[in-house]
C-alpha cells in the first residue's frame, strides 16, 4: 500500500519504528535486531566511563555500524539545566542536533517533568537543536511544546520499561485529533506488537521502543514482529477503521431471508 514517508524535521524515513540500543544480550544481537526491525533511527546516551572501559566502546562501535540515524537522549536528567548541558555534550560528540529530550520528574514512574521539559525544549530550540521531547499525553503540555518550536512530540504510552501498553487511549486519541498535522511518536511503555499496532491504528506517526524487543527471548524475531505490527497498524489507519457502535447490526443481508415470519405457529393463528 502506498504511503507517504515519515517526515521529521524535514528528513524522511521509510520505517515508522524507532528503536533503542539498550538492554540487549550482546552488541551483535542488538545489531541483528535493529536490522530485523527495519528501524532507521536509534537512540543512545552518554554516561561516565573510564578510558579503558571496553564494553562501552564495543556497544558504541556496534551502534555506529547499524548505519541508523543517531538520536541521543538525556535520560536520567532531573532538571532542565542538566538536560541542556547533556544535550550540548551529545551534540558535540555525536555531531547531531537531534535530541530525545527527557527531563524526569518522578523516580517511581519516570514521568516527565512538564515544567522542566518545556523550559529545556524552549532553550534548546533557540540553540539550534531539533528536539523530540519525551512527554506525557497532556494536551496543553503538547501544545506548549509545539508552540516553542518542537516539530515532533513523543508522548508516552505507559511508564518506561513497564510494557503496559497504551494506558490512556482516550487522551492519546484526543491528542491525535487535536494535533493532526504534528508528527506524534508513541514512546515508552509498549510491551507487545499488538500495542504498537494499536498506536498506529490510532493514527500515530511512529512508535519508539526498546525493552519489548531487547528483553524478548528472541530479540531478533521480536524485532521483525514489531516491524510487521507497525506496518500493519499504519495500513489499517490508512485503510480507515470502521466506527464502533453500541448496537448489533447484521452483516448478512436481511432482505430475502428465508422462513421470515413463516413459523408454523404464527401461520396457524
Amino acid at each position, binding site marked *: 500500500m502506498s504511503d507517504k514517508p515519515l517526515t521529521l524535521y524535514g528528513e524522511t524515513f521509510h520505517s515508522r519504528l524507532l528503536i*533503542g*540500543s*539498550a*538492554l*540487549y544480550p550482546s552488541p551483535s544481537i*542488538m545489531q541483528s535486531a535493529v536490522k530485523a526491525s527495519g528501524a532507521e533511527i536509534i*537512540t*543512545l*546516551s*552518554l*554516561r*561516565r*566511563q*573510564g*578510558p*579503558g*572501559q571496553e564494553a*562501552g*566502546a564495543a*556497544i*558504541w562501535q556496534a*551502534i555506529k555500524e547499524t548505519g541508523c540515524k543517531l538520536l*541521543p*537522549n538525556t*535520560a536520567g536528567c532531573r532538571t532542565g*539545566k*542538566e538536560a541542556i*548541558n*547533556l544535550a*550540548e*555534550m*551529545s551534540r*558535540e*560528540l*555525536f555531531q547531531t542536533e537531534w535530541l530525545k529530550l527527557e527531563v524526569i520528574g518522578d523516580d517511581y514512574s519516570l514521568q516527565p517533568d512538564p515544567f522542566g521539559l518545556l523550559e529545556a525544549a524552549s532553550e534548546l530550540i533557540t540553540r539550534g537543536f531539533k528536539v523530540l521531547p519525551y512527554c506525557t499525553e497532556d494536551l496543553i503540555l503538547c501544545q506548549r511544546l509545539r508552540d516553542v518550536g518542537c516539530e515532533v512530540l513523543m508522548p508516552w504510552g505507559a511508564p*518506561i*520499561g513497564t510494557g503496559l501498553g497504551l494506558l490512556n487511549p482516550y487522551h492519546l486519541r484526543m491528542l491525535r485529533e487535536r494535533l493532526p498535522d504534528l508528527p506524534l511518536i508513541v514512546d*515508552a511503555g509498549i510491551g507487545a506488537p499488538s500495542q504498537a499496532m494499536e498506536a498506529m491504528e490510532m493514527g500515530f506517526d511512529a512508535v519508539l521502543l*526498546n*525493552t519489548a524487543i531487547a528483553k524478548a527471548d528472541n530479540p531478533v524475531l521480536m524485532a521483525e514482529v514489531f516491524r510487521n505490527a507497525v506496518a500493519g497498524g499504519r495500513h489499517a489507519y490508512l485503510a480507515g477503521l470502521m466506527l464502533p457502535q453500541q448496537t448489533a447490526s447484521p452483516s448478512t443481508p436481511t432482505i430475502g431471508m428465508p422462513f421470515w415470519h413463516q413459523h408454523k405457529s404464527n401461520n396457524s393463528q
Partner: protein
Amino acid sequence: MTTDSGHAAGKDEKLKETQNRSLIQCSLNGQSITLDSGMSIGDLAKKFGYTGKEFAVAVNTEFVPRSHYSSRYVEQGDLVDILAPVSGG
C-alpha cells in the same frame, strides 16, 4: 662525577620542589583525585588516558566545549565529568 654531597643537594632540591609544588583536589567522574595545579582539561584527559574525540566534558555540571580544553584550567574543588557513548532507550 657526582659526590655524595652533590647527591644530597639534588635530593633536597627535589624535596623542596615537591613541597613547593601546588596540588589541588578535585573530582573526576565522582572520584576524588589529586592533581598538580595549572593542569588544563586537555592535560587532565590525557593524563587519565582519554584519547581521540569520543568523549565530552562538563565541569561543575557545565558543558566545556572541546575548543576550550586547553584554556580551561582545573581548579580546586572542580567536579569534572568525562562522558562517553553508551546504549540508551
